[in-house]
């Protein structure tokens, strides 16, 4: 891939997704794009890019984004956002209400919702009268099953503070299992974010985490999901997206709020 080709592709991906690849990522982008060129039966970048650019279905853009974004998930991922949730957002919510509902949308194998449950347990422990629950959904039933089992590799828990690891996990050979007290606080279920009927049942959430999920949707679907999230949030509720995602590129209906630790979108 020439420097000019890289810039064309980078600008296109940026406009479509808000994800920006700097020059130093050229090699990384190149190797993944080459895989996609082969997988789609093209023999050079030019023919692949033209095909990608005019692909009405948007499927290849999604495939390319999948290849370019690390799909790995682990506990306490994007720590600064969690710090914001724990130290700035939760105290604000607790001041106003005693029942807190959080939703991890696109929860994969459960690392995110369990992280949120651990944080809530830590932050809200001892505050009398406050109840909370974490809802965790994914379109993929296999990952939901794994999440319910709650068994994780050392790699998944590598960022969990040692103290929390002792308190919230039980070592099982090479693996770590989430303790039942935390498991029962998280409700896992299958949900398609594009299913209007199912999405309308989702309501009264104070915070939604939907990180690195919407990048896999096309423009129209992303807008629709953003509107469903709007309906699902309480007044003033918050939504966290992945660090490279921008709600403002999808829809202007949420306000961007700047906290000490992170930027968060608010209804």
């Amino acid at each position, binding site marked *: 891939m*020439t420097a*000019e*080709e890289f*810039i*064309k592709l980078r*600008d*296109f991906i940026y*406009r479509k997704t808000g994800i920006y690849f700097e020059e130093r990522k050229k090699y990384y982008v190149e190797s993944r794009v080459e895989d996609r060129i082969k997988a789609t039966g093209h023999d050079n970048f*030019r023919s692949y*890019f*033209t095909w990608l*650019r*005019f*692909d*009405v279905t*948007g499927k290849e853009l999604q495939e390319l984004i999948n290849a370019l974004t690390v799909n790995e998930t682990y506990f306490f991922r994007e720590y600064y956002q969690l710090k914001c949730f724990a130290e700035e957002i939760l105290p604000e919510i607790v001041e106003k209400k005693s029942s807190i509902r959080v939703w991890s949308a696109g929860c994969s194998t459960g690392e995110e919702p369990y992280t949120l449950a651990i944080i809530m347990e830590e932050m809200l422990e001892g505050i009398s009268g406050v109840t909370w629950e974490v809802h965790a959904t994914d379109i993929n039933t296999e990952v939901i099953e794994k999440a319910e089992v709650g068994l994780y590799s050392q790699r998944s828990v590598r960022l969990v503070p040692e103290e929390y690891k002792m308190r919230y996990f039980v070592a099982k050979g090479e693996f770590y299992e989430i303790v039942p007290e935390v498991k029962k606080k998280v409700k896992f279920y299958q949900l398609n974010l594009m299913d*209007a009927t199912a999405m*309308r049942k989702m309501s009264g959430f104070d915070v939604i985490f939907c990180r690195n999920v919407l990048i896999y949707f096309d*423009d*129209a679907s992303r*807008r*629709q999901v*953003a*509107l469903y999230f*709007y*309906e699902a949030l309480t007044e003033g509720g918050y939504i966290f997206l992945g660090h490279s995602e921008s709600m403002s590129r999808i*829809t*202007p*209906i949420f306000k961007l709020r700047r906290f000490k630790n992170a930027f968060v979108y608010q209804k």
Partner: protein
Amino acid sequence: MLEVKISELAEQMKSGKSKNERIQAALDLGSIKAKEAVDVLVEQLLVEEDEVVREAIVTSLIKIGDEYVANRAAGLLESEDAYVRNAGVEILSIIGEPAIEILQKMINHPDRDVRILAVNALGESHIRETIRYLRRVIMEDDDENVVASAIEYLSELGFEKEDKEVVMKAAKRFSSPFFQYTVKSAIEKMADL
């Protein structure tokens, strides 16, 4: 029966009890592929003041996404309201192929601002004929802002030597520093052609 459903949803969208009800009605209208549904969505978009309901309307129009939507969306490019104009661009660019005929007309619109918006819609779209139309705009349009917009898009989309030649020839058409800078940036992007 369908007409009744559309008029019920239209009524809910206009004056539903809650904002959520209005949003839901607008989204539900997007599941009805009928001209009447498109008409009520567009008419409401023109007067709607709530930003979220507007977004729901635009989302539904994109979802219906046929030639009739494209024709109605083209009319939005002439609106005085910036949100409505941008919504028109977004709808036309996302729905793609059904918008091609109307966009072909819109790049010849007498108002240059409308032509710029049509170029934006073309450039953002997945329409294969885009390159051909952008070349034509660059060679024939007599407004430098319209031509500059088309050049920016062609520099991203063009992969033929001819694309670069069209841009290089256009350099002689307008002499303003802004235009010359646009041409220079485009040629840099197309250096390998």
